[in-house]
């Protein structure tokens, strides 16, 4: 990875940082509102894995923010560059498709981490949190962010217009993240929905991430690691192939 890669990474990070009120502050506020509302409604009624509900909810909200913002970063950057035409600035230089991929995905991970850290800072006052096995926290945040950053690259390249990107977000990303156990343990679901949840890769990202905090989870963190790792590998290969072919970027 050369200087072209690090410059593209720097530019992508600078891009979201310059509009931090939209890209960082707003999602932190949204997560905080979720916490206030859900914990107000459910606190005292529900315990999950022996953990009080608000404490259970916080890692879910953190991870959801990581994932949604990682997706938003690469997808919105790419579609904006395509629509305004300034994508040529990164297509003309000698940047390889591997460098291109790595820069966009890593910038997405950085945005996810910044927002995730913000959500954690804003919410951890509300409940006693533990950090039982912190390595899992890092690993799942990193891999989850990379997966959604990669999906964002795919969506940003595929979409020609902003509403196509919005459709991708509303009909795929949102349902997958909301139906993944952010707000509940899937063990509390009816058997059919438990089964469905086990087919949702986002469930494993959130479950594994949460395991890092409490040391308990719905699935084994090793199972989650292998599911999430496989998804990342497949998506990486798929995205690299699109970029190598110049799909929609080089006519």
């Amino acid at each position: 990875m050369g200087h072209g890669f690090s410059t593209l990474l720097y530019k992508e990070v600078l891009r979201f940082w310059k509009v931090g009120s939209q890209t960082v502050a707003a999602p932190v506020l949204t997560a905080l509102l979720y916490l206030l509302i859900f914990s107000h409604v459910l606190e005292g009624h529900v315990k999950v894995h022996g953990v009080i509900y608000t404490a259970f909810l916080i890692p879910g909200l953190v991870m959801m923010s990581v994932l949604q913002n990682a997706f938003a970063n690469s997808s919105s950057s790419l579609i904006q560059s395509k629509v305004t035409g300034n994508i040529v600035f990164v297509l003309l230089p000698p940047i390889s498709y591997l460098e291109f991929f790595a820069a966009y995905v890593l910038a997405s991970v950085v945005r996810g981490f910044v927002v995730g850290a913000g959500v954690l800072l804003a919410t951890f006052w509300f409940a006693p949190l533990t950090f039982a096995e912190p390595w899992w926290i890092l690993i799942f945040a990193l891999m989850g962010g990379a997966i959604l950053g990669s999906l964002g690259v795919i969506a940003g390249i595929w979409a020609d217009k902003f509403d196509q990107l919005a459709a991708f977000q509303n009909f795929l990303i949102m349902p997958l993240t909301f139906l993944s156990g952010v707000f509940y343990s899937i063990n509390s679901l009816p058997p059919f929905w438990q089964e469905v949840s086990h087919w949702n890769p986002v469930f494993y990202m959130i479950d594994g991430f949460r395991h890092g905090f409490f040391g308990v989870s719905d699935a084994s963190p090793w199972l989650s690691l292998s599911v999430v790792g496989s998804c990342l590998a497949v998506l990486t290969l798929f995205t690299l192939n699109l970029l190598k072919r110049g799909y929609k970027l080089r006519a």
Partner: protein
Amino acid sequence: MSAAIRIQQVSKCFGSTQALDAIDLEVRPGEFFGLLGPNGAGKTTLISALAGLVRADFGKLSVMGHDVQADYREARRHLGVVPQELVFDPFFTVRESLKIQSGYFGIRDNDSWIDEILENLGLTSKANANMRMLSGGMKRRVLVAQALVHRPPVIVLDEPTAGVDVELRQTLWHFIRRLNEAGHTIVLTTHYLEEAENLCTRIAMLKAGRVVALDTTANLLRRFSVHTLRLRTRQAIPPELTHGAAENGGWWSLPFDRFDEVEPLLAKIRAAGCVIDDLEIGKPDLEEVFVRVMQGQAN
């Protein structure tokens, strides 16, 4: 490696539109080359294929001996392209844009060259202005600057003076000429044929994806265009002297090939009893050549 740009049998279709049709073209190092043609002729597509923005269906392209597909890194390092569309990144200032663009080409400390480019394009006072705040002409200058950050030996400008004021045109051509004198190869597309005539040493004309004329500017002017003697007279010139040229508002346009034909012609006209009130000599111009070439290939 003798060519700065080599284009061999390059074809490209967009759906049913044949944008490029077996183009063969070579630009030599140090040339100031003009690429002309009507709207939709394929100029931008050809430039895009050279820059790797478009993939040719057939054929080969290379920049300074580097194939644009197989050896794309080297090819792109040697090429600077000013795109036709006025694009910019609204998140950054002029200087940030140029530093970032330098970084993409692997260049870390480029400040002194960036300052020089800014100075030469009259952008110094705008260096810290956000791109969004610039006028169209200023954005166009930045686009030129971005193409030059990596000191490319081959510089391609796709209609750099569209919608640009006189001052920038002069600054721009002054700067580009200096780069050309310093050894950079320049390829220019423009619809201002006077500009091409003054700047380019060799010209290719494209029509519907084909090269329909390719020669030095001087040869093209000689080949397709003639001098005219324009006269305003009080009396009609006898038809045997006008060779069928029509009169228009008292003016007669008489074509001639060599200057030594002029004196005898004027003498004959005077001898025929015509009093000459006004006289002009029209030089051959590229516009006429262009129109003739395009018409000649109409069917």
